């Protein structure tokens, strides 16, 4: 198997892009990635997207976006709800690793602000089990809220501890030019914001936004011809669990996250403590806490306590979501996993501007689809 590297990244600001169509957002991010990589020829296109078929009626996204990008190469559309971007990245990497393609573009794009919130909520609820969760009135947020309540009950963790996560993310996002929510908040504001699904309040939840991100990947051999700073794909894994919360053996561990990360760590020959910077899938505060634990940064049941005790504060052992995460960078669903890869790449290159984590060498991206049903973990490593 060939070694693979990321040689170019591009992102649009996450937000309400009323003036831009899905195709415009995608092409904008993809052209930036092309320019960043020195405009190589690509052999294939991989696109992560969740709701375009339902929301804007456009299916066949591979060909559609290849057309607007002006590249008539093999093009694939990958959908696994909110982890579509992370899954597209893994498939793109496999395409290059295998030797079938040499250079590919992996992009993610989502357009969520075209319709009223309730309609978008309905589209996004497709990530859950339609016939036996959504049918009975469960929202996607309420499934996460149920996990959070169970967690608080089982580990006796106060609700306030969870509110520290959004505060940290909003702080981080003030330094990210691509972030949707670039303002600070406080624990009091998080706790007193409107309740969405008790115990989750508005400020525990990632916002709805449009966005696109793209990365170009090629062999390490090719990468060495154009740069001295190689951002190598050191490991990756994907885990799958039951689509429905009712079928989980355990509510406070996302088995898919454990399985995906174990695989990625083993492949990269590293341990959780070796990670310098991580972008984790904090769609809701509780998901951040579960990620911290399931990825091996904190012990089970200790994630929120470690957060409260300052383990993940600035100058800690590991920098979590310097971008602001889903919470404040934003969560353009099918694009989120690709944003994470782009952000980690910038960190390892030392090009992350105000977000830069000093001398980051190993970075990890964790992308969750559904309430833990599809999870990808990718590990990137800088080599000079």
């Amino acid at each position, binding site marked *: 198997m060939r070694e693979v590297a990321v040689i170019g990244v591009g992102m649009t600001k996450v937000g309400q892009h009323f003036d831009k169509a899905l195709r415009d957002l995608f092409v904008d991010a993809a052209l930036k990635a092309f320019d960043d990589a020195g405009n190589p020829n690509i052999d294939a296109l991989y696109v992560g997207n969740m709701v375009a078929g339902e929301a804007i009626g456009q299916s066949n996204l591979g060909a559609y976006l290849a057309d607007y990008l002006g590249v008539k190469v093999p093009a694939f559309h990958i959908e696994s709800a909110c982890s579509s971007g992370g899954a597209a990245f893994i498939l793109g990497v496999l395409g290059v690793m295998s030797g079938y393609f040499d250079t590919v573009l992996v992009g993610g794009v989502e357009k969520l602000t075209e319709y009223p919130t309730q309609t978008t909520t309905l589209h996004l609820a497709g990530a859950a089990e339609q*016939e036996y969760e959504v049918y009975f*009135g469960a929202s996607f947020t309420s499934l996460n809220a149920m996990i959070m309540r169970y967690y608080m009950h089982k580990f006796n963790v106060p609700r306030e501890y969870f509110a520290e996560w959004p505060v940290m993310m909003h702080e981080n996002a003030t330094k990210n030019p691509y972030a949707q929510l670039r303002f600070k908040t406080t624990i009091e504001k998080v706790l007193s914001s409107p309740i969405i699904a008790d115990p989750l309040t508005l400020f525990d939840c990632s916002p709805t936004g449009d966005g696109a991100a793209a990365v170009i990947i090629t062999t390490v051999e090719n990468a060495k011809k154009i740069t001295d700073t190689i951002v190598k794909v050191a490991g990756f894994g994907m885990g799958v669990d039951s689509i429905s919360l009712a*079928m989980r053996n355990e509510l406070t561990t996302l088995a898919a996250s454990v399985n995906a990360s174990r695989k990625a760590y083993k492949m990269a020959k590293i341990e959780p403590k070796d990670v310098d910077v991580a972008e984790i899938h904090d769609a809701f505060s509780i998901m951040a806490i579960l990620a911290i634990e399931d990825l091996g940064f904190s012990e089970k049941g200790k994630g929120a306590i470690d957060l409260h005790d300052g383990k993940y504060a600035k100058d800690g052992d590991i920098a979590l979501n310097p971008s602001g995460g889903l919470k404040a960078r934003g969560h353009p669903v099918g694009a989120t996993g690709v944003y994470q890869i782009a952000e980690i790449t910038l960190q390892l290159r030392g090009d992350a501007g105000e977000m830069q984590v000093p001398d980051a060498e190993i970075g990890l991206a964790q992308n969750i689809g559904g309430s833990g049903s599809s999870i990808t973990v990718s590990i990137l490593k800088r080599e000079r």
Partner: protein
Amino acid sequence: MSVPKYWREIPYRFRLEGGTCKDCGKSFIPYRYVCPYCGSRNIERTTMPRTGKVVTYSILYVFPKGFKKQAPYAVALVELDNGARVVSQLTDCDFDEIKIGMRVEAIFRRITEDGKDGIIKYGYKFRPIFQNKEKH
């Protein structure tokens, strides 16, 4: 919603029918061809018990389309007495009465309507059992 899509789920949603794995003994709703716990294809059609307990719950203030009339309402993950787990609404109780571990029973209720002219959707919801005859 299409009529067959609604009709074929009736046994599971109205009567709590499902499957029990003849190899590992675990039960689930709806029926499925392969046991999600042990992979066996040896699945018997069974009817679930109508009583169980609340594993966890949430109160929804922002709700999906079609649930406006009921909001705010409670949704729970309920473990039935044979171990099968389902997600549905809790009804006939005040929010502050709801506790993790609370005993509940399934009742047949209207879930929502598919617009003005569409299907009226029915299924199970759960309510507390206030007079609990036997202790579990």
